[in-house]
């Protein structure tokens, strides 16, 4: 009787030890991010339409953008003043790429296929509830500007034309 209790105790301990696992301290999730070097024209288009002070150029939004048309990063800069700085574009790039890093990575790896996996695109297109409404119409210049960046071949002329839209 005593022997079987010992057996079961050792058995249970072994089960727990085998079942438990500790995280691998060296493991990393490798993500692929869209190109930073070709993000500047995309940032300009986003700043103009999405980054105003009453939209994503506000500290009260989960997705925040910085730039000339909205919230500024430098203490001496004011909205509508000096041109968007490199630091502001870097911050906007981080905000957008780190919103859903794993999904962003998958979309970029798939060369922009099925971009509506990203909340960013669903909200911008209005397919998911968005206080600002549908900003992108599939195929229009704003849409092409953003999606071409995710595809890895930023459409600069589309981004430039997006600045002219109301």
């Amino acid at each position, binding site marked *: 009787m005593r022997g079987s209790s010992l057996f079961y105790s050792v058995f249970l301990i072994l089960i727990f030890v085998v079942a438990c696992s500790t995280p691998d301290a060296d493991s990393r999730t490798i993500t692929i991010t869209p190109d930073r070097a070709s993000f500047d024209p995309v940032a300009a288009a986003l700043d103009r339409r999405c980054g*105003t002070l*009453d*939209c994503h150029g506000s500290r009260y939004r989960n997705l925040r953008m910085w730039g000339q048309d909205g919230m500024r990063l430098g203490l001496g800069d004011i909205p509508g003043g000096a041109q968007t700085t490199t630091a502001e574009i870097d911050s906007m790039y981080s905000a957008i790429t780190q919103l859903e890093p794993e999904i962003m990575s998958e979309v970029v790896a798939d060369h922009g296929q099925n971009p509506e996996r990203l909340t960013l695109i669903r909200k911008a297109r209005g397919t998911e509830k968005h206080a600002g409404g549908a900003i992108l119409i599939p195929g229009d210049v704003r849409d092409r500007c953003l999606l071409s960046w995710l595809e890895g071949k930023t459409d600069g002329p589309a981004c430039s034309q997006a600045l002219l839209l*109301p």
Partner: protein
Amino acid sequence: MVKHFLFAAFVATALSCSLDPTHDEAQSDLGDEAPGVSPGPDHRPGQPCLICHDGTTAPQWSVAGTVTGVLGSTAPLHGATVSLTDANLSTFTATSNEVGNFWIESGRWQPTYPVKVAITYGSATATMSTIIGRDGSCAGCHASTASRISPGPVYVAATAAQLSSAGGSP
């Protein structure tokens, strides 16, 4: 009798509850009326009008704000024409009153955002360099002082000399 009491208690509880504490806090942050000023066309210049004028506690407005004359000053400008154009190119104009306030009732014009704005006073015109994305309260962005999160008050002229030479009048 008990049913009536319970129903009355339910209704009283429902009416006393607030479903939007953030909105309540925003209203509370506006503070009391200025001494000697009653609620009306001249009250609360420079404050975000639509926090209260949302159709629940005050008449619903679509766009409203306060116009000042010169960059860096909070002195109001009476008689400025505020011209708004929405995404469908629908336009509307309003005129600032003696404390610089202007407002548009929602029943008269409900814009489709984004909206562009220009303000005219005599020969002086100031065009807003950015769009309004969704907030009809000018002071939601235009605080009393400029900072990295606000361009400061809405103004027409860069200098007092420009304003006086513009030839505008209330």
